[in-house]
């Protein structure tokens, strides 16, 4: 078969698989890619070599499909992964006003705009300018992380202390949420040190060691919250057109591209953090820009970080997908780069076309079943996933992290603080004193 058809078919297959998987809450595409990598390595050991023209486009298709369509469970089922948490708030607002379909499709437009941004803006300029940025910034990543942590912790404002006379009682009432936020950040950070230093998860699934923690921090509390307090979801309308124009898309790309780009480039900075920073930086107030911008941000974060591996002369590995790819194949040439860009273009088109039917299917599901039952179903899938991949040890980690993840839900503080699980250990390690802390914790 000609290389062109091999690339096209494997890219489409990867996109379709991930598009369907994206609709299942709790299942991350990196879990599936991990299993695929293990399978390919097993084949290689057995003497069967799968050419990169097959698995490279397929993995790109998987990442693209996930980046575009994971919005469906995030908005419609309320079970977001971390990078979607900013989409969820206004997205759920759309859901509760019967416009869930519109919300997901606006995000999909954002995803497609993100694809254009990657292919036509980042694509031509990345090989020229990213190595320059890398040379300048390479020794400075640790303080950039510390500065981001400082901003996350300092930029949360009190939500209580609204009534009553001035004094300590009012101050304490106001600071309850902030203290809960700080506690969440540092507890998550502590958990991160344990998991990243001495993971109790079986070494055979070591690449999934952070998964149960993420599920516990983000997805399970959300499902529990929905099950306990979910309002009745009104009947959802399927509209034929979206109230978006070129200027709206342009401003979304501006905001989302910045956030997603930051998250893709900086280590340990996820899509959620990138979205927060870009939201603050661009000060956009239009809700549609916010939702679409998060679509752009999520796409640029996942796909952009994967693409960095392919940029000639850069040699940068960011994100779980890229690390998995690196175990199979290390791209070095411009032809690899163009293959990646072409695959992104094909996969984006396929994923966008799949958005509408899959969103309608999930809406039908929500319409037919009680939303609380849907959330319970989502929770069951998540628990089964954790058990299947990481066993009871992973389940224990998920339970512990659920306890931490419930803190912001109960106290009304920022859920972003849960990202202490990555940010704190990474920042300490990169600054060179991570080992001091792990020794102090008796982990090393």
């Amino acid at each position, binding site marked *: 078969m000609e290389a062109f058809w091999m690339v096209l078919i494997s890219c489409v297959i990867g996109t379709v698989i991930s598009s369907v998987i994206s609709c299942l809450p709790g299942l991350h595409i990196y879990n599936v890619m991990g299993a695929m990598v293990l399978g390919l390595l097993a084949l290689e050991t057995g003497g069967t070599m799968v050419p990169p023209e097959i698995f490279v486009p397929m993995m790109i298709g998987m990442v693209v499909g996930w980046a575009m369509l994971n919005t469906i469970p995030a908005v419609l089922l309320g079970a977001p992964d971390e990078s979607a948490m900013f989409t969820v*708030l*206004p997205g759920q*607002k759309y859901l509760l*006003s019967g416009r869930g379909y519109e919300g997901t499709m606006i995000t999909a437009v954002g995803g497609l705009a993100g694809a254009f941004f990657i292919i036509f803006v980042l694509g031509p300029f990345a090989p020229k*300018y990213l*190595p*320059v*940025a890398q*040379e*300048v*910034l390479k*020794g*400075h990543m*640790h*303080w950039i992380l*510390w*500065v981001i942590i*400082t*901003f996350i912790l*300092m*930029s*949360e*404002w*009190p*939500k209580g*202390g*609204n*009534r*009553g*006379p*001035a*004094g300590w009682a*009012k*101050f304490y009432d*106001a*600071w309850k949420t*902030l203290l809960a936020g700080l506690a969440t950040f540092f507890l998550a950070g502590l958990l991160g040190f344990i998991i990243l230093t001495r993971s109790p998860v079986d070494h055979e699934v070591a690449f999934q060691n952070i998964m149960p923690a993420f599920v516990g921090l983000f997805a399970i509390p959300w499902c529990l919250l929905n099950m306990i307090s979910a309002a009745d979801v009104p009947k959802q309308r399927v509209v034929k057109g979206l109230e978006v*124009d*070129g*200027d709206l898309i*342009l401003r979304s790309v*501006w905001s989302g591209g910045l956030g997603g780009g930051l998250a893709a480039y900086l280590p340990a900075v996820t899509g959620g953090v990138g979205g927060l*920073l870009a939201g*603050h*930086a*661009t*000060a*956009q*107030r239009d809700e549609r820009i916010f939702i679409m911008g998060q679509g752009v941000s999520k796409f640029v974060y996942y796909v952009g970080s994967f693409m960095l591996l392919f940029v000639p002369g850069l040699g940068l590995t960011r994100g779980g997908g890229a690390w998995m790819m690196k175990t199979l194949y290390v791209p070095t040439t411009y032809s690899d780069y163009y293959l990646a860009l072409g695959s992104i273009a094909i996969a984006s088109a396929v994923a966008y076309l799949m958005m509408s039917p899959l969103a309608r299917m999930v809406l039908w599901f929500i319409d037919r079943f009680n939303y609380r039952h849907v959330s319970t179903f989502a929770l069951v899938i998540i628990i089964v996933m954790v058990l299947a991949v990481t066993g009871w040890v992973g389940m224990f980690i998920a339970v512990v992290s659920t306890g931490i993840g419930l803190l912001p839900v109960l106290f009304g503080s920022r859920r972003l603080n849960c990202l202490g699980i990555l940010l704190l250990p990474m920042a300490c390690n990169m*600054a*060179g*004193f991570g080992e001091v802390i792990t020794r102090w914790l008796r982990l090393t």
Partner: protein
Amino acid sequence: MKGFTHFMSGVAVASFGPWAIDAALAGNPIFFILGGACGILPDTLDFKFYRFFYHHDVYVEPDPANLDPQIVADEIARAVAMAHDENRYINLKLSSVRLGADHWQQYNVTFDNEKKEVVVTFGPVVNTGQVPIPGTEDLTTGVGRAPIKSRVIQTYDAALKVDIFDGPTIGLKPLGNEEGDLDLEFLPWHREWSHSLTMGAFLGLLWMIGAMLWAGLPVLEGLTGWKAILGGLFTHYSVAWQGFITIAACYGIHVIEDQLGHMGSNIFYPFTKNRTPGLQWMHSGDGLPNFLTVWISCILIFWNLHRAIPEPTYHFSLLHLLMVALIIPGLIMGALHWLFTRGTRVDAIVDTTDDEWSASKAG
């Protein structure tokens, strides 16, 4: 300006200190953290600490079970009468009305100086995202009107809209004119002592004293001449004076940036007693100036880091960097924006609500 803008400006100012980059390359991020933290610190002091201890003379706390705009109007009129009769500064607190876990009653206060009355209207119930709940627009009807003894002059154009989380404070200050007018000061606890260059210098001084105590006494044996001794002192107490400069400068940039807006700051507290009005070039929540400041800060940080590389592989000037990272992309964005919006007339939606106040509630 918004918190993130101040924060990034602080980091950018810190990056101008060669010691900050040297320390960072040695694994010590402290000066950059100090830069960002001090950049946002004036607002932190106000919004997270001071406002909870700020004394109010009159608290308007509408009863959620008996929402009556007339009661609110009467209380505000009473505060105005107090300021007029007692000829003193009166702090009036307009408390928010929480109706449920995620529901808040919105209300608006307007001073009609022509008729010399205060007008209070209840708006819709809003959620914590400040989005009206459909069907609640006319839930609480009626308008509260109460005569006021003095005209209330509003020089700062913040609308007195109360909805989520904390309600605003307004200060009623007798102007001392024959008419007995009162000046309305929005959020009198904000941009007071905390937003002063002197406060930044004071905090820097505290750091310096702490760092000098930490460093202990210097060993100056063998140094002769005042230049050598001075050099020895500077080296021994380097963290102290470098921290002082970083804190004072990064704190100061916040005060300077805020002067570009409307409210202004009390720049040399305690030597000055009142806020110096801002230049009114922008509102603190305007998207473009905030983004430009953040982006230019990033460019300056990048430039300073590049300058610190001893033998760079890539050579470029600041002008080249500005062209590539700011001017050309800006022109392209501007052209695309023009292309997408040409022929359409965009009516500016003027939200006069104070942006920093709103941002503090959204954060």
